[in-house]
């Protein structure tokens, strides 16, 4: 979902590369505050935002994969191993526990992890922007 042409792996390094390549006639961007870069939509600012978007998206997709496998795998599991369905826990058949009770705490747990990690990504981004340059 992200354009394939910009391969930003380490944000800071690319920022500098961009500065050197795009604005060779000026030394300004080296001392310019990134916050201004953000507001003025320079190549540097755009690269920073792309990095943040990519980090947040890959976090969301990874956690979504956990849910897709954890819950989405259940109908498949019940289908290929019908004996699993006949196991009982405290007199309740396993599918009823796996579908009626456990998904809800599981979803909350994944959601809680996401909120923590997404806020950390944003904090990293904010630190990068607000870092004193001089």
């Amino acid at each position, binding site marked *: 979902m992200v354009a394939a042409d910009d391969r930003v792996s380490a944000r800071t390094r690319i920022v500098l590369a961009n500065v050197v390549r795009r604005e060779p006639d000026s030394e300004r961007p080296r001392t310019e505050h990134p916050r201004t870069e953000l507001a003025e939509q320079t190549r540097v600012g755009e690269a920073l935002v792309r990095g943040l978007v990519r980090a947040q998206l890959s976090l969301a997709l990874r956690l979504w994969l956990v849910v897709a496998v954890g819950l989405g795998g259940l*109908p498949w599991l019940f289908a290929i191993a019908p004996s699993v369905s006949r196991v009982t826990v405290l007199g309740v058949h396993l599918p009823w526990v796996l579908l009626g009770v456990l998904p809800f705490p599981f979803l909350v747990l994944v959601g809680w992890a996401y909120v923590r990690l997404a806020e950390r990504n944003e904090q990293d981004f904010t630190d990068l922007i607000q870092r004193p340059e001089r």
Partner: protein
Amino acid sequence: MGNGYVATALVAVTLITVGIGFYGLRLARTTSDFLVASRAVSPTWNAAAIGGEYLSAASFLGVAGLILKHGVDVLWYPVGFAAGYLALLLFVAAPLRRSGAFTLPDFCELRLGSRRLRTLATAFVIFIGWLYLVPQLQGAGLTLATLTGSPYPLGALLVAAVVTANVALGGMRAITFVQAFQYWLKLTALAVPAIFLVLQWQADARPAVTPVEGPTFRTATTVVVEHPATLTLPDGQLRQVRPGDELTFAAGQPVPDVAGVATDPADWLLPGTGADEQGMFTTYSLILATFLGTMGLPHVLARFYTNPDGAAARRTTLVVLALVGAFYLLPTIYGTLGRIYTPHLLLTGETDAVVLLLPGAALGTGTTGRLLAALVAAGAFAAFLSTSSGLLTSVAGVISTDVLGRGSVRGFRLATVLAGSVPTVFALNVSGLEVSQVVGLAFAVAASSFCPLLVLGIWWRGLTARGAAVGVLAGGGAAAGAVLVTVLGPPLTGWPATLLAQPAAWTVPLAFTVMVAVSTATRRRVPTDVGATMLRLHTPEALR
């Protein structure tokens, strides 16, 4: 049924709802007043309000009814209804709040700057809103018919009139406190009777939920059939019954097999196996629709605007997930105990009434039983009052601004009457459908139209207005067509029926594929301000 408490409870819920609404309205008279006021609301209150608006008749009545009828396979409904909030949290919540969009058409215009796409989004908001309103009114009609013996159309009409008048007069304009109150009322109304029901089940020496010989009548029962059905009597004879037929059973007699109902204990107790390909397709389709559909429901998104910033929107969504998840633990108890105490519902076909009838059936007609029955009735009433008010407000809002083109109060009132009358007409004509099934179809349409639009719009710079429009038309149009054929068309069998009854598994991928393909083909039309939009959607507010 002669339970005087029920009428009192219903009147009390209505009065409190209308009362709090009007009191809140006097405090906050303009839209901006309302928004500013609500931004002082903590994530917990806000989350309870979102939960209150979300937990509809389908959740309160329908899920338990489905479990009673079909067993373990339909547990995917509550799981999906809750998981939808996780998808909303992961992909949409914070960026959507930061976009500043108040409705889905707003988002389309902000992100892609196209008036035509906005019009298309408006049409889908109205369609989904109406599709979701029909089962709410159905639930209302069913509840009043079950509790007071009034004819079904009267209940549906009465609730439609109350909700429309309330929204039109402004008594329920998304006041956070009303909706939060409704959440706690609904949770209490299911949780407290559930405790008594489980204790009663213990006291009755834990009768088996799935006796080997199938469900049996615990007491002598006379059943009045309400929907045509084919019964298989214990001696193997087939018998056709029509509405109005009376059947009498002695205590201990087995419940006859009803076509289309899981009366066989193993069918009900154990999930479908791989041998049933259509069942497998239906399950995955339902998972896709509910997991991805929540983010596209019009009344859900409007509430996110009341969060102060993106981070608060995330935390609110997490609390909603917890609140909604806690609620969905309960319908399973009702559906399960319904197999023991209200097996006659399998015969009448009114399985959606199990939540309403179970307290009376299990606990008897003493004061406790009657009080708990009244509590459950109050919760059911709160369920369709809150959801249908929220939906009607959203639909009327887009009709008045995008269709009628006036922002005036008079325009909004006219739009409300318009928005309320169409689903009422439908509700009077489709009483045979299960509440949860119709809601599932609304989720399928939302998942095939707004989910790709939101997810790609938020995360992919390459989306164009044309790609979005064609994708919504292809995926959402296909899902909407499938819904219309299922609800209004001739009865189908085999794969065509399965593909149309649960369309999400093919319409969602279709929408995503078309949207990406057409956007790529028209990539010169990518909005020039996409960088600025991405900056706004994804960076913390503190940096602006």
